[in-house]
């Protein structure tokens, strides 16, 4: 699936992350984070995995992170993908 519109989700408030998506050919991820040294690598992996599990093949992701926890990053990324892709299906799963 491709991202067909330029969209953003999230904010630059503390503990949040702003994720911008741009149409692109292939996958490119750019990360700016207040905790880059400690979690930059982990955030990149998190995003790559999520894009993969949702079969996103073409997108330029720009991340501006203020120390958001993993689930917040997932949340903002999925919101952005739903906004930026045609027919993005959100799969809600029951809490265990």
């Amino acid at each position, binding site marked *: 699936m491709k991202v067909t519109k330029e969209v953003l989700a999230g904010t630059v408030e*503390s*503990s949040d992350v702003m994720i911008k998506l741009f149409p692109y050919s292939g996958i490119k991820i750019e990360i700016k984070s*207040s*905790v880059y*040294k*400690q*979690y*930059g*690598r*982990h955030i990149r992996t998190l995003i790559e995995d999520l894009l993969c599990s949702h079969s996103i093949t073409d997108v330029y992701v720009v991340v501006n992170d*203020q*120390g*958001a*926890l*993993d689930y917040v990053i997932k949340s903002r990324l999925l919101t952005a993908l739903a906004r930026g892709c045609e027919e993005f299906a959100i799969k809600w799963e029951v809490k265990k």
Partner: protein
Amino acid sequence: MKNAESKEKDNLVTYCGEFSKEEVFTMSRLPRANRLNRSKVSESLEAVILKSGLKNGDTISFHHHFRNGDLTVNKVMEIISQLGFKNLCVAASSFTEAHTCMIDYIKNGVVSRLETSGCRGKLAEAVSNGLMKEPMIIRSHGGRAAAIESGRLQIDVAFLAVSSSDEYGNANGVGGKTNCGSLGYAMVDATYAKTTVLLTDTLVAYPNYPLSINQRQVDFVVIVDEIGDPNGIMSEATRFTRNPKELLIAKNAVKAIENTANFKDGFSLQTGTGGAALAASRYIKEVMQAKNIKGSFILGGITKSNVEMLEAGLFTRILDTQCFDLAAVSSLGTNIDHVEIDAGMYASMYNKGSVVNKLDYVILSALEVDINFNVNVITGSDGVIRGASGGHSDTAAAAAITIIVCPIIRGRLSTIVERVQTIVTPGSSIDLVVTEIGVAVNPLRADLEDLLTKAGLVLMSIEEMKEYAYRLVGVPDKIDYLDQVVAIVEYRDGTVIDTIKQIKA
């Protein structure tokens, strides 16, 4: 004369005029002409620097009582640089955001070594990134005083800003246009430096009083337009927090204090800076009033909160080594029970007994605490220098009960870690770590556990705290350092407790 001749044979020297020996028999740098004029006031800072005996490679010092409002370092360094001096060591009591200018002087070779208690902002980042060839020396307040007292740190010229001075060098931090309050750090420098230069914007009639720095110690007095920005004295750290998390931590800390044996008439207290530590002051006041307990003294860096406790009659005296806000400055100037002490008396291990040895409770912050209770207050979890050793290790070592107050996480960063980036205060000095989720008691103080449990505090091990935090934020990657040592952290006794390496860009 016959008597005189035989006396000369025994290495005794014959008298030959009232001031004939003055050039050799004095510590003073002042030319004789000025002494006869009975004034040490010099026309310009540049002239004074030239007369001070300053040479390349010397050590100069400054104090940081004007905090972010300091104007002296900039003024002095500019002239020193223009005059072409090189390879100086700058041994300030601390570097604040106001010392960013040092970066250029270091790059130009004017300054080649730094010794301090703390460092922040752009200068700190630059040092962490390998700005200097020689490592920065970091000492606690007590450690710096001890190094100076013992001669390990020899200051050649001390440039000390004072709020008011008379023409002969009697000076203080309360009698001028721009008051900084206690001159605790400056007093040590003035006592031991080879040459002492005072800078002031308020010249008062001789003799000035009080005598924080006295004329016996002073070589030159220079008048400047402005000694410092009074608004810069109020640092961020002293504003009273409304943050419910910090208030909760403070309440827990005070609950712990209330339920330990030292909390009785005559007890002494020090609270550090940081939201929770300052909030604790307010709660201690309430508890003391409720239980009708009167303390002996408050120690350390003084804030409005402390002054209110003194004025409410809850403590007999404040022993003040530096003023953190204008309320403290004002109180020092007017209240006879608010007493100025120098950094050596405050916390030096070298002299015959400093005040920290008499402390019952100290409440301190931390950037990081590890599972061995070691505390880091100097580097962030990214390895960059951003704090100060300050009085942390001094008070922690000596106080009867040492309490660290900190949130379990700050944003995505855990405060409780496997191993701190830098050890400033060793774990054996720490008794309790109080966070918003519970209290960790150092196994060395198992005697406190029962008391605290009965008080209704939730006790957990420090490992449990770390696990809780890591479960929330995830385990962080380790910071990559290069081999180069950019700073050496000295313990109070001059031994090396840790080093700080250069961070990978």
